[in-house]
């Protein structure tokens, strides 16, 4: 039989007859690797990523979808994983800050820019903000400062270092766009 590419497997909720608790086998791709685990249906995606996969960049902040500290990318879009049921992750492609690391532990350009621009103070909001920045940067579009402000508005930084965060994202956006332009120029020649 021909093997299908990226089969979307839907699993059913199962009930443990002893405790009455419900579980579901959640199979998904996390940072490029196919993973599966049995999750309690009451778990949030934050719970699953932190407890089952030790992805501690996914922070527990407000836990009501306001602060953005738990932000992850699911199928290319940003979501606050605290208000996303873990069972919904079945069949999804999930990316967290850990997935940005290079093969030899290198930082990505956006992470380096956060360091260079002193956009990290206590660091608690940083992973969430960087994942929003990743979605912004991967769109390949050029945004104005005001547009970037709006695109990053789903994050609260209680150290209030917003200007430096904007500087880091804007700088990386411009750098990537000029590199893309240079690469396109070379191909044209």
């Amino acid at each position, binding site marked *: 039989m021909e093997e299908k590419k990226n089969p979307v497997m*839907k699993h*059913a*909720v199962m009930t443990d007859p002893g405790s009455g608790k*419900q579980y579901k086998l959640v199979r998904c791709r996390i940072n490029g690797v196919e993973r599966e685990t049995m999750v*309690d*249906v*009451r*778990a*949030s995606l934050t*719970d699953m990523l932190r407890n089952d996969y030790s992805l501690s960049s996914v922070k527990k902040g407000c*836990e*009501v*979808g*306001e602060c*953005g500290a738990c*932000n992850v990318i699911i199928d290319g*879009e*940003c*979501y*606050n994983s605290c*208000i*996303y*049921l873990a*069972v*919904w992750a079945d069949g999804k492609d999930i990316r967290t800050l850990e997935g940005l690391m290079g093969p030899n532990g290198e930082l990505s350009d956006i992470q380096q820019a956060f360091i260079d621009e002193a956009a990290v103070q206590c660091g608690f909001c940083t992973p969430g903000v960087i994942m*929003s920045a990743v979605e912004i940067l991967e769109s390949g579009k050029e945004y104005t400062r005001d547009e970037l402000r*709006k*695109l*990053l*508005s*789903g*994050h*609260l930084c209680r150290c209030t270092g917003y200007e430096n965060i904007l500087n880091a994202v804007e700088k990386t956006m411009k750098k990537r766009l000029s590199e893309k332009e240079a690469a396109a120029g070379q191909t044209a020649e």
Partner: protein
Amino acid sequence: MYDMKALYEAESVQDAVRLLEEHPEAQIIAGGSDVLVQMREGKRAGVELVSIYGLDELRGVKLEEDGTLRIGSLTSFSHITKDPLIQKYINVLGEAVDMVGGPQIRNIGTIGGNTCNGVTSADSASTLHAWDAVIELTGPQGVRLTPIKDFYIKAGKVDLRPAEIQTGILIRKESYEGYAGHYIKYAMRNAMDIATLGCSVNVKLSADKKVFEDVRIAYGVAGPVPMRAVHAEEAGRGLEVTDGNIEKIGDTVLEDVTPRDSWRASKAFREHISKVLCKRALREAVLRAGGAV
């Protein structure tokens, strides 16, 4: 961990209806940005949930054969804003839902959830009222349609009968063709805030752009549920497009709005901005319709 008794995941609309019939106490969960937050706050302790989040058949915007725009109830705010059909025919709805919460909330929040929660401040609700939207509900007896103004019963309560789910929001061709609109959200912050007041208007101008053939004015937070300013609309129909007439229409909205005092703003302030937002939104809508004031 959320405090829930059980979760049932629907595999189809029919399956959702069946699950709701089997579990009459269950709460429907779409994107969860209301339901899960309420659970986190300790409300709905031990609730049973029927999740419809996986029903991709309820996502997306389509143009039906008769020109009706059909918005699947699970379409997220960000997908509505990006949708080419929305941009072409009722761009103001895309603009309105682009003011909900922040980017992550707009990715998870659904237009169906925004209307089924029965909240007056919902950014989509006033605009949907302004465009005479029709709500499609699917239940054990099949599909029924209801105008959005009848869908809202009272604060937090909509006409969702036992085992029914909202499956679509329809905007008929006669509701949008020839109209141009504008939505203004008045809030304390530019993001992650709830409207102090929201005003959505649309206008249809005569061929020479000199006369208001039709005016529709809708509000959120001007009363317990989203509403239309029927007296002001009546006053505006047939008037010449002039600054003085826009002032007149805007002043008439006080016959319609019934805002209240709350910790966000006083009744007096809400009444004041009801007029101001209506006039500003009308001026912008006239410009968008090709007219001038």
